Structure formats: C-alpha cells, structure tokens
C-alpha cells in the first residue's frame, strides 16, 4: 500500500534480486523512510506508542500509558508545535536563518500581555492582539537586522535573545504577574470533552483547538497555497536566483522573522494561561524554548540550509517528542526521568542530523 506513493524507484541501487520481489521492496521501503521524513516520523511515532503501550500493559510503568494520559500530555504539544513552526519559517528563509530569541520573545511578550490583561484591565481579545503585535515587533527587529542590514541570523538573534531576556526580567523587577484575571486564564488551558463523540473518548486540552489547530492551518495555507509561501521557499533555496526572478528577497525574509515573532507572541499567551501567571523567565528557564523548537524543526525535516521544510513534518516531530517524553516520565519517574528527557532530545537531534546527512549523500535530500 505504501509503496504506491514512491515517486520513482528507478534510482534505487540495484539490489541482488533472487527472482523474488522482496529485496527491491525492502530497498524501496528504506528509500521511502529515508527520503520521506513524514514516513519516518510516522514509523517512529507508531514504534513509540506501541513500545510504551506494551510496557504499560506489562506494568513496567508507574501509571498507565492510556489514551487519556496521551491526550492530557497534548497540552505540551501546543508551544512546541507553534515555536517549531516559527523556526520552520525562519530556517526556510535561508542564508543561515535561525531564531535563538523565540524563548526570550515569549518571556517578554508574556510580561507585556500580563500587564495589559492583568493590570491595565484590557479585554482578552485586545490583550491577545497586543501580544501578537508585540511579538511581531520583536520579530521585526530581528528581521530588519538580518534581512535589510545583513547581519548573520545566529548572532542577531543571540543579541536580541540577551536583550529581550534582560528586559523581561527588569520590566517588573523579576516579579511574575499573577493577578485575578491572569489566574482565571488557567481555565482556557483545561481539557474539554469533544462534542459528537462518545463519553469514553479522552478529553482533549482546549489549547489544541484555540491555538494549535488554527495556527497550523494558517501556516500550512500560507506556505503551501500562497505566493508568499512559494517565494519563501524560492528565497531559501537560492536567494540570488530569487532576486533575478523579481522576488523582493529582503522583504520576504524580513516577513518570515516577523511571522516567527508573532507566533512567539501567541505562545506567550499560551504559556501565561498554562502557568496561570506571567513569569519573566517563562521562555528562557532551563534550556529555554528555542533549543527544543529548533530540535523539533530539524527532526521534522527542515533543512538548516534553507528552502526545505513542511508543516506536517514539524507537527509529527513535536508529537513524537511529546509522547516519547510522556512515556519516559512514566518509565523513569522523578528527577531521573526529567534527565532522561534531555538525553532523548539530544540523541534524537543528533540522530536526525546524521540521518539528514546520509540521506543527502545517498538520495540527494529529503522531501
């Protein structure tokens, strides 16, 4: 069934055929898994779920790895997917595009949102709009420096990471904002029963529908169905060629950073709701949010050299990491589990990068 989606099997290295169709099928499957990142992610995802469920049924885990548990952990998926998409846009824009500052933007925008909604008494919608606009403004700073002035993205976003992180901490004397309206936001992070489905269907976190699905759909539509999306891929693949075809390379690249900032602004609201408090270190504590986001993007098949990357890959990669982490927490409870998550994240990233390298040399790249 899956072999039908292989576009052109003629390029496979001639395996020793024994008259049977088996070897060519195997090599075709290998090729599919290596070149189609989405296929690989689905395989890995199924493997993780089957392994964890088996462990759970044999009572190796401290709590059942059940559909309701898997559904509850989806709340962690929201910031991960959104920031992964932010990195997708920026990395795809090419010329070493990367955004280290997303976590710091989340912190700073979260504080701004906390002020507007928690202290100035703005309505939720106005405060949300402010958060997105402010995030976009932070992204615009990155975009101007990278696209128009010509700074290397890595260094620019390192500098703005410092600046935003510092401002977020200083702006309210390192104090979180957790007034009544902000605390009440927690209800938006609750899990809900889906309509039209049986009672036994697991409850799904509300954030999936309010933030995740709309953003994923919008980003997918923009990338796959608008001229701007095609321009972004063109700019990322070869910006000189894009320039000669009449694309405004600078503006396209600039808008990618603005979009990444706006998405980070959304994540700030999600994070505030999740913590029921606007924390000044929300996006930078521990390893921060940028590192997991970049990991998700690379694992999802986004080429760090630009021009290649798909929304579905990022979503699947985030789902894989979330469910893997959830399983690790049950298998190795407590501190050791949290530490093992670090290991898993690092190992998965190195594995994905090495795999990208092998695929590039053997088949000429992922799709």
């Amino acid at each position, binding site marked *: 069934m899956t072999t039908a989606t292989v576009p052109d099997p003629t390029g496979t290295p001639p395996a020793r055929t024994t008259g049977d169709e088996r070897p060519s099928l195997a090599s075709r499957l290998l090729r599919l898994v290596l070149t189609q990142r989405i296929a690989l992610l689905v395989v890995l995802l199924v493997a993780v779920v089957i392994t964890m469920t088996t462990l759970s049924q044999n009572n190796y885990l401290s709590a059942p790895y059940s559909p309701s548990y898997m559904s509850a952990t989806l709340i962690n998926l929201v910031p991960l997917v959104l920031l992964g998409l932010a990195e997708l846009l920026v990395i795809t824009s090419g010329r070493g595009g*990367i955004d280290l500052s997303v976590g710091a933007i989340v912190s700073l925008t979260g504080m701004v949102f906390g002020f507007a909604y928690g202290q100035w008494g703005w309505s939720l919608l106005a405060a949300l709009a402010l958060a997105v606009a402010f995030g976009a403004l932070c992204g615009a700073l990155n975009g101007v420096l990278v696209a128009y*002035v010509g700074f290397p993205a890595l*260094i620019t976003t*390192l500098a703005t990471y410092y*600046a935003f992180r510092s401002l977020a901490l200083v702006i309210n004397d390192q104090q979180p904002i957790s007034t009544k309206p902000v605390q009440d936001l927690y209800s938006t992070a609750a899990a809900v029963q889906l309509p039209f489905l049986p009672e036994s269907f697991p409850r799904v976190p509300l954030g999936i529908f309010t933030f995740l699905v709309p953003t994923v759909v919008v980003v997918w539509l923009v990338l796959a169905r608008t001229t701007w999306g095609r321009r972004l891929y063109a700019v990322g693949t070869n910006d000189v060629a894009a320039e000669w075809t009449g694309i405004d390379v600078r503006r396209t690249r600039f808008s990618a950073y603005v979009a990444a900032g706006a998405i980070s602004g959304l994540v700030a609201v999600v994070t505030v709701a999740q913590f029921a408090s606007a924390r000044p270190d929300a996006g930078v504590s521990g390893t921060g949010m940028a590192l997991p986001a970049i990991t998700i993007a*690379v694992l999802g098949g986004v080429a760090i050299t630009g021009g290649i990357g798909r929304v579905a890959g990022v979503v699947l990669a985030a789902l894989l990491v979330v469910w893997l982490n959830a399983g690790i927490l049950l298998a190795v409870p*407590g501190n*050791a589990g949290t530490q093992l998550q670090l*290991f898993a994240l690092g190992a998965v990233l190195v594995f994905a990068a090495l795999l*990208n390298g092998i695929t590039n040399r053997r088949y000429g790249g992922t799709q």
Partner: protein
Amino acid sequence: MSAPTTATPPGGVGEVVHDAPARGRILPRPVTGQEVVLVVVIAALWLVLGLATPAFFTSGSIIPLLVSMSPIALIGVGMTIVIITGGIDVSVGSIVMVSAVVTAQALVDHGLSLPVAVLLSVLVGGVLGLVNGVLIAYGRVQAIIITFGTLNLFKFVGLQFFGSSTVEGIPATFAFFGRGEAGRTLGIPHSFLIMLVVATAAWFYLRHTAGGRHFYAIGGDAVAARLAGVAVRRRSLIAYVLTGLLSGLAACFVIAQGTTSLAASVGSGTELAVIAAVVIGGTSITGGRGSVLGTVLGALLVQTVTTGVTQLGWQSQLSDLFVGLFIVVAVGADLVRQRSRRTS
C-alpha cells in the same frame, strides 16, 4: 582631496601596506581596527566606572573582574578557532559542567593533587570535544545542530554524576586559581596569567604557523582549502578538541571561583557569553576571519559591563541588555568594514 593619505593610520609606512596588501603583507595587521576600538571602549568604560564608583579601581574590584573573565576568555580562544573554521560550538557550557562535576567529585572522593585534578578536568573536556569533532568533521553535519544535540547529551551525562544534589565539601586544591591570596603572584591572578599564556600561544599559532593558517583557509572556502592540500576534516576535528580541552581547563577555574559546593547549574549559559565575547572581538561568524586578541578583549568588555552594572547598583539582569547591544554594534562595525573593503 588626498584620499589615500587620509585613509591610512598615522605611522607613515602603513600607507604602502594599505595600497599593496598582496606584496607587502599577506597577514592582516597584528592589531585590527576592531581591537583598537575595543581597547578605547574598555578604557572609556573603566574611566566612567572609576569616576562613578570610587571602589572600582581598588584591587578588591579589579582582581575578581580578571578572575571571572578568565574562563570565558579561555574557552573563547578555542571558540575563536572553531568559528574561524566556519563552525560553532554551543555545547561548551555542558562540557564545563561535566568536567567540573567529574573533577569536583574526584577531589572530594580521592583528594587528588592539583596537577592530577587539572589533567583529569582537561582530559574529560578533550574527550567531549572529540565527540563533537568526530560527529561534525566525519559525520558531515552542521556544527550548530550537532552541538545543540550534544549540549543536551553532555548535560545528561553531567547530571548522572550529580545524582539529584550538589557536590559538597570540595577541598581547596584549586585555591591556586581562585580569587584569594593563594591565587595570585605579584598581585596578578594565576587564572588570568594562564589565560594570557594560552591566548598568546594561540595567537602565535594562528598567525605564524602553517597549521594555524589552515583554519583560516577552511573558513574562507573549505573546498578550495581541501584542493590546496589542507586536511580539512582533521583540522576541524582539532578545533573542536582544542575547545573541549580549554573548556576542561576553564572548569578548574570555575570550581576555584565557587564555594566548597558545586550546583548542577554550573556552566549553563557559558556558551552564549563565550560566543558574545568572540563576536564582539571581531571574529566573523561566517568564518575565515578573526583573532584571539579580539576575543580576550571581548571577554574583558563583557565582564566589565557585568561588573559595572552591579557596581552602579542597577539590576544585574540589565547587563545582558548591554551585552546584546555590544554584539549588534560589533557585528555592525564588522559589516561596515567588510563593505568598505569590497568597494575600495
């Protein structure tokens, strides 16, 4: 308008060099413009700080400043080489953490002598650097991705040594590198002296040996370098191993600066401070250009800002804002110079 003469710095002979760089001088000048500017900026900052807070020019303020900048500058020497080759290493913070915890634990358990402990720390750092180097040079993957991954992997390894607590009761073996009286000769901290020696050696190596110039060749154009007979893979491997070794040595300084206990957060964020120092020092992040001298000055500037903000009684988190600004200004200056060089 006599453009050629006004464009040259005072000193006369500079003009000839400026007009005929290919014949007179293949190497860039020993001190670049960015470094001169850095010296001026640092001097100005020190002057302002000295006027604003009378305590700044006492040894109680300068010596801690020199001691705290040493590990950053030391790792910066390795990072400069890595960035010159066109790579980057964001895992140095985790390397420092692993080296520090292994060494501290060994000091507590076995009471190692100073040379053995230093050797252990440097070796641990070197092994981790080797992991980075092998993956990057022979796995042929982007350095930033791999080192982001190993940042997590090394942190995991370090946390295994920590268990879930801190390392307590570290003996004062490393007082030789510390802030105290035992850490100074003629009033100059040993850690600062060691850093200077390493930086000078690296400066000479990068500037005046064929092996050192190979790093620049790789960063300028890796394919051309390979065709010209440079062992590109082995050279980049060496760059990451060197960074690892220096991070291991820096871990000793970090232990010496702390109290008798070591927390799991040791080293976190070091990579950003080091990269900031390297970039402020004028090393081009795209590879091919840079100097160790600039990095040392960059580290000094970053530490001056941090110390200054604290001494002025501002919120200490504000120093990050200034570091960010300095990075932008430094990269901007580098861009302007690059463009003027291309058009002239």
